[in-house]
Structures are given as structure tokens and as C-alpha cells.
């Protein structure tokens, strides 16, 4: 699991490599007090037939750069909805969200896609690797959408896979790997674009305890390099390893000491 660490790690890695530093985004604001997530008064209402379901009812949440945060809560609490909004997969019905200093609440799908690509790395419970592609191609895929040329894509994907200890499995299909290896490949894919946030949704949910621990150990290591990590989980053991925990209950957030 301990592959060669050939990536230079600045002390403030997330800040130094933050895409917020990239020019071009018109609504780019200076990261307010180093906040990587600044959510204000978030409401999310779904219309299910005639009925309106309030998944989030006015959530305020600040997450500072370099935090390792757990979002916990029972199913149906609005936990997933909050994760989708932080991950720019969904937009709030009401309220504002700044990701890495960029207001995203009113963005269209194309611009949200760019934000996801540049600033957010997803890790899913079910790994969500493309079955037909090798893990090298899987890890290189976000760079393709970022417009990086093929040669650099392959080089960077390879380096990322080496850093999670899969340097000798580059050409393997996901089906040829164990669950733990797949999740590490997925983590490599999430990190390959140097995102501001690593957003993990039940990352150990599909793994046995031992493999899950190894994945969490890898998270510690990534956090140690300065990356902000947000883990959405209902597993108290997973939450216990995070530095800060917030709980969602009935669409509202509360801090857990």
C-alpha cells in the first residue's frame, strides 16, 4: 500500500494547488478566511408529485481549508442532499454556496461540471469505476475533461496510481482488482486533478473492516498532505477518525463536540 511518494507536497498543499488561484472564473472571490466550503441558508425542496419534501431547511456550514470533516446522520436526514450540493452535483433551492471561494448556487450545468472537474474529487461507496476501461484510463479520465493532453494525462494518472500503491496494476480492469484496490484506484482518480476537496460518500461501506481501515489510513495520509477531506457516513467508527463531525438531522446541521 505504501507506493513511492513522488509527488512534492507543499505544507499548504491545497492552498498552493488550489484551482481558485487559476484565473478566468468571473465570480472568483478571494477564499474568505481560507473557507473551502461556505454554505449560507441552504434549502433544498424536492417536489414528489403534489408533495414538497424539504430535504434541507436552512443549512449554514463553513469548512476551512485542510479540514478532515465527517458529515453524519441517519438515512433520510438530508445528508446525501448536502453532499450533492457541496459536490456541485445539485443546486440549492435557496441560499448560497461558495466552493473554494466561487459562488456556485446559480451556475448552469456546464459551469458546475467545470467546478466539479477542477475542485472536487469524488470517492463513492460503490467505487464507480468504468468497468470497460483500465484503471489507468479511469484515473486519467478527469484530466481528459480538463483538456489535458494524452501524454500528460497518462503520466499524471500513473504517478497518482503509484502513490496509492497500484503502480503495478495500471492495465488492470476494475473487475480484476479487489475491493480495497478498486477504492484506492477511485481515490487516485479523485486526486488526479489536485482538487480543493476530496468528497467521500460512505467510502468504506462496501469494504470489510480491515480493508476499510486501510482506506481510512490512506485518507489520513492525504489529509496530512493538506487536502481537505469531507466524509459522508453513518458509521460512527469512520466519523471518529475525522477531526470534526457535523450531524444532519431533519434538514438542519448541528456540530458534534
Amino acid at each position: 500500500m505504501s507506493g513511492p511518494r513522488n509527488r512534492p507536497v507543499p505544507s499548504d498543499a491545497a492552498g498552493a494547488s488550489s484551482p481558485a488561484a487559476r484565473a478566468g472564473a468571473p465570480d472568483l472571490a478571494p477564499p474568505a478566511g481560507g473557507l473551502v466550503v461556505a454554505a449560507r441558508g441552504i434549502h433544498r425542496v424536492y417536489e414528489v408529485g403534489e408533495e414538497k419534501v424539504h430535504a434541507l431547511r436552512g443549512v449554514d456550514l463553513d469548512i476551512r481549508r485542510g479540514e478532515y470533516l465527517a458529515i453524519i446522520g441517519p438515512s433520510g436526514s438530508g445528508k446525501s442532499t448536502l453532499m450533492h450540493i457541496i459536490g456541485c452535483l445539485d443546486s440549492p433551492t435557496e441560499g448560497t454556496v461558495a466552493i473554494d471561494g466561487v459562488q456556485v448556487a446559480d451556475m448552469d450545468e456546464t459551469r458546475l461540471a467545470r467546478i466539479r472537474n477542477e475542485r472536487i474529487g469524488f470517492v463513492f461507496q460503490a467505487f464507480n469505476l468504468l468497468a470497460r476501461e483500465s484503471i489507468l484510463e479511469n484515473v486519467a479520465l478527469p484530466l481528459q475533461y480538463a483538456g489535458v493532453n494524452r501524454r500528460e494525462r497518462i503520466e499524471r494518472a500513473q504517478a497518482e496510481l503509484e502513490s496509492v500503491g497500484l503502480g503495478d496494476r495500471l492495465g488492470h480492469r476494475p473487475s480484476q482488482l479487489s475491493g480495497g484496490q478498486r477504492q484506492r484506484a477511485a481515490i487516485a482518480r479523485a486526486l488526479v486533478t489536485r482538487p480543493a476537496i476530496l468528497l467521500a460518500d460512505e467510502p468504506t461501506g462496501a469494504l470489510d473492516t480491515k480493508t476499510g481501515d486501510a482506506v481510512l489510513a490512506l485518507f489520513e495520509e492525504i489529509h496530512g498532505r493538506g487536502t481537505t477531506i469531507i466524509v459522508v457516513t453513518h458509521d460512527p467508527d469512520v466519523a471518529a477518525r475525522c477531526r470534526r463531525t457535523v450531524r444532519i438531522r431533519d434538514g438542519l446541521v448541528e456540530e458534534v463536540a
Partner: protein
Amino acid sequence: MILEHMRSATRSLWGNKLRTFLSMIGIVIGVGSVVAITALGESARASITSQIAQAGLETVTVNVGRRPGAAVERLFTEELVDKFTEFEGIKAAAAVNRSNAQLKAGEESASEQITSATPAYLDIFSLEMREGRFVTEADMLERSAVVVLGSELADTLFPDGGAVGSSVRVLGSSPKQLRVVGVLETRSDTFGFSFDSGAFVPRTSYLVRIAKPDRPDSFVLWADPDARDVVETAAELQAWFDAETGSENAVRVQSPSTIAETMSGVTDTLSGFLAGIAAISLVVGGIGIMNIMLVSVTERTREIGIRKALGATPAAIRVQFLVEAIYITLAGGLAGLALGMGISKVASGFLGWDFILSPSSMAVAVAFSAATGIFFGLYPAARAARLDPVVALSYE
């Protein structure tokens, strides 16, 4: 980026070989039939042109049109022959009259047309002699009582041979006796006129012995394709007549080339019509592609969700699926091209035509198949691009 889409399209289509193949069949058949029909049309056209060329591309006829009028009566004289030879691109001309007659030689008889002929007539129709000679200048001057028979007529009247030197009687109110001086070689009909069953009498002699028409029925001209395009010559003559008669229907100038053009027009219309029907099968094939692409989008909803989570814009997803659709139809189009060429090659072989398929038709067929892919791939691709990432990611 496009290259990347092509790689991924190849992988995804290759991963579903049977389905890809089945959805391609519609396009293969559609393009194949369009190509086959177009090729057969082109071959038919070439074959007609070459048949007409064999019949003599150098002959131009001038006939009385549907509404002759007084102008024609004035224009159609023996002197017009000299006028014609002044035209650029015309080497010789002859006035022609025909009349039906009962011919008898010994016990044999035949009812055929007697045609007035001049020495130039031989060249105008590129006639060849089987025996004896054709009408000469001397025959013209002396108004000789001679006749040249078509091969078939000669065989009818003289089943035992020996036509040349024998006599033929032309029955009527005042029967005439004509001496056979030659027999024509067999040849194909021109403008529906059979030389083989005709009898040819020197024009001067014809006008005193056979009939006394008010004016020539028609003129035949010997055009010189080396000096000038025959169609052009015919067009100029037509224009001259139209101006002289003040009507477009008084006189009709025809060359085998103009007939060839008319025939080609008919073939083109017909093959265009058939290609249109074949194009319908291409549309059916396109609907098949659309169906399979919609299935594919549904099946790969989760993949689309993953790609979107990783930063694929709606445009990137749209292009990805569009490239796949174009891929299938283009591959189907190329296979159809090969199939169509095979079919038309075999068919034209059976029909004895030359196989012709112009590069432009091939390009059109392939371009059409790609266009089918774009057209029928657009909707499924748009649907994939519109998918909500959250919904797509949670799709089982």
C-alpha cells in the same frame, strides 16, 4: 478530444459486438441498395449511350413538327439541302421521301417502304453494301430505273439469291420495273426505321417514277463530330428553324445524341425514384440506430453519472454518444457501399452492361450514412447530456 471519443466509442461498440452488428444491418442494407441502384442507373445510362453511338452518332434528322404551318411548306424544298451544307459541322445532307409500295419479283412479293436516296445517304447512315453498289451520281443524273434493297427484303424477294441484276416490279396504277443494283449489309434500326426491309431508289428517279410529293418529308444530315459537337449542331439548326418558322413546333431537329439525352433523363428519373425508395430503408435503418442508442443511453445511465461527476460537461457527453452513432452508421455505410458495389457488379454482368460507379456517388452514399448517424444520434445524445448527475449516479 474527438480522438478520445473515438477510442471510447470503439471500446464501447466492440464490447457489444452482436448488438452493434445487428443495429448496423439496417444501414448496410439502406446504403447498399442506394449504391446498387445508383450504380445500375449509371451503367444503364452508359449502355444506352453506347448503343445509340453504335447506331450512328453522326446522323441528324430534320422532320416536320406537330404544327408545320405555311412556313414549313415554304422552307422544305430541295434547295434546303444546299443550305444545310453551309452550316458549320455538317458534311452532307439529303432530302427524303418515303412511300408504301407492293414489290414483286417472280412469285415473291412484299409490301414495304420505298425511300428516295442520294449517294450521300450511304455516308449519312454509314451504310455498307453486301453486294453490288449504292445509288450513284450517274443514277441521279440519268434518273435510272434502279433500286437498292435492304438485306431482309432482298432475301424475301430473292430467296435463292441472285438479287443484283434481277428486276423488281413496283405494283400500282402504272407499274414500274426497277433493276436491282445492290443489297445492303444488315444493320440495326435507327429511329425505328429498318434499313433491312427498305428499298432505295435514286431521288431523281423516285420523283418521276414512284411518287410526286409536294415537298420532302424530311432531311437527313451527316454531322461531323470532329468539327463540332453534334448536339450543338442540332441545337443551332433547331434555333435556325424556330427563327425561320417563327414557331417552336414547326420543325423538329433530332440527333441520336439528343435522343440519348432524353433516354438518360428517363433513366436518371427512374433511378432517382428507386434510390428514393432505397433511401427510405436508410431512414428505417436510422430509426434502428436511434432505438439502439436510446437503449444504450439508458443502460449506461450510471456511467454517464460517473462521467458527469468527474467533470464531463453536457456537451462532452453529447459528443461522446454522437460519435458512437456516427461510428455505427459510417461503418454500416462502408459495408453497404461494398455490398451495393458487389450487387450492381453482378447484376450489370448479367445484363451485359459495363459496371460504372462514379466516386461522387460513393462519396454521397457514405456521407449520407454519416448524416443518418448525426440525425438519428442527436436525440439520444441530447437525452444523455440532459441527465441529472444525481439521478444518473444513483441509477441501478
